């Protein structure tokens, strides 16, 4: 340990030196959190009440942005509705399919690791690569989707070009990438002690009974985590729309994130409106995750230690 010897006796006391070192270590992060979080939040909170195009100085207009959003903006409510639809379709399907796969693959048999790898594979691929691939899959003429459907004598679809199918088509891509949720559930399932199952079996419980009476209650904490993560991410979905549909057809896939992006960086930058919308999104996410966490005690199983 000679290598660690340091010259004895610096002017500072041990405690003082510790504090200085610690602040040097976290200095980059303090700068980061100030410049990239605190300042932008304050700036947004101010600019939401201004007319601001990013070039000329912002002009205070009070609640104008909010009044415009609520009453005059033709795409505000449709985009909120599209976002709600997306969240309601994608979050539960992620949890249900993720859990189903995890239960299926929570076995010790030869080859199970290969299956886990295959199901996890889409999660690793870059989102743009995946989305552009699916854009081609959904092509009504040349795409794989319709080709397979017609081979199976099933009705085909216009997919992304149909106002009714565009959103489900986007959600299907998310289900394809359900491996991430599967891995989290798998880790949770493997924490369920085998003794509990053994005891239940001696009492004559069947597989289905054991799943609903033991497995499901014990993994509710993981489910809560998935739910909160899923909600936060779903409300901020953007790439899908930017790559696949540009919000169309009509406003059927205009997710709120995409609307904010278009208002901020589109042909007619309206940064005041966009920051106001971003704040609304923030508040919606806070309220929904808050309600989820508050009501979770009703269904999340607490271990008694």
């Amino acid at each position, binding site marked *: 340990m*000679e290598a660690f010897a340091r010259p004895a006796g610096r002017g500072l006391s041990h405690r003082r030196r510790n504090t200085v070192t610690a602040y040097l*270590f976290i200095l980059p*992060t303090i700068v980061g959190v100030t410049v990239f979080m605190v300042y932008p939040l304050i*700036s947004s909170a101010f600019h939401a009440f201004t007319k601001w195009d990013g070039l000329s100085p912002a002009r205070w207009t009070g609640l104008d942005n909010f009044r415009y959003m609520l009453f005059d903006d033709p795409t505000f409510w449709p985009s909120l509705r599209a976002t709600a639809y997306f969240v309601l379709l994608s979050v539960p399907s992620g949890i249900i399919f993720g859990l189903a796969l995890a239960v299926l693959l929570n076995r010790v048999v030869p080859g199970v690791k290969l299956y886990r790898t295959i199901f996890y*594979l889409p999660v690793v691929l870059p989102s743009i690569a995946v989305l552009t691939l699916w854009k081609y*899959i959904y092509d009504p003429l040349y795409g794989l989707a319709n080709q397979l459907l017609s081979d199976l004598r099933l009705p085909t679809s216009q997919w992304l070009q149909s106002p009714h199918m565009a959103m489900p088509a986007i959600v299907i891509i998310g289900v394809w990438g359900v491996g991430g949720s599967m891995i989290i559930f798998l880790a949770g399932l493997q924490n369920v002690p*085998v003794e509990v*199952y053994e005891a239940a079996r001696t009492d004559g419980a069947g597989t289905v009974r054991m799943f609903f009476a033991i497995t499901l209650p014990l993994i509710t904490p993981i489910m809560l*985590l998935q739910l909160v993560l899923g909600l936060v991410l779903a409300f901020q979905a953007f790439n899908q729309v930017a790559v696949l549909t540009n919000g169309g057809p009509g406003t059927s896939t205009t997710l709120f994130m995409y609307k904010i*992006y278009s208002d901020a960086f589109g042909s007619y930058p309206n940064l005041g409106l966009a920051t106001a919308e971003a704040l609304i999104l923030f508040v919606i996410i806070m309220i929904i995750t808050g309600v989820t966490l508050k009501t979770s005690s009703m269904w999340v199983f607490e271990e008694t230690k």
Partner: protein
Amino acid sequence: MTMPATTTTYPPSQRLDPSPDLVTKRRIPLSRRVPMTLSRVSWYLLCSLLAVTMLVPLLWMISIALKPDSNILQLPPQLLPRTFQWSNFIRGPEQIQFPLLLANTVTVTALSVFGSVASSMLAGYAIARIRFPGRNFWFYLFTFSIFVPGIVTLIPIQRMFFAMHLIDTWFPLILPSFFGNPVFIFLARQYFTSIPRSIDESAMIDGAGHWKIFTRLMIPLTKPLWITMTIMAFQASWNDFLNPLVYLNSESKYTLSLGMANFMGGLNEATPQFNYYMASNLLYMLPPLVLFFFAQRYFMMGLGTLGVSQK
């Protein structure tokens, strides 16, 4: 309904290390070894069917990447290429100056991975292992920023870089990562907290300062932690689309995500270079795939740990 305590505790140094395989090292109940309602054969059938369904889009992509030009607009579309046109892997990338975009992406990714891992490791170490006034305050502030959606901060930050004349440069993509990543700091703090105090106390008695303890002792001890962070940071940067979209204008500065989206957007029946496109797209997927196969255990557990460590 009372249950015995269930948490499996791994030795602290292995908390992020997936090597104690989540299943195989534990006693297996009969019920899991022999499926009850499904026979083993139908389990394999079901899993294989699902696996094939998952893989079909990728296999189809490979098939298109190999199709000759004349095959692309053929109706009904063919599942397999008539002949294999390997030159797609040369001509496709040429279309978007793939080597240039690759170099751009590698530069941006390498710098932001280094920046975020280094700055977050330092912050995580300081918060976990140095007692100093304000450490809880800073930790809570860093953690809080995890919950602020990116779009709220994006607009002011974009204006900031605009005022600094840094639009259409890579600085906005790289610079922020040098100032700590809140999720990484959270992970690092957890991990550093689990390392026994006696380790650095003895080094301290020998006269080592925190910098020496950090670089000589902690970095080797926390290999699983920073490998995990590196993988996550690599993925985030390699896949990032929104930031390049907001900050980059000239195509010569594009990253691959932007270049690929642009390439696909320009394709239609008039310029049916879908085979070129898919060949390039496969090349774009390759680095994360290679990383995945080499670092598979870290990949699988990166997410898994997040789920379990909350207990």
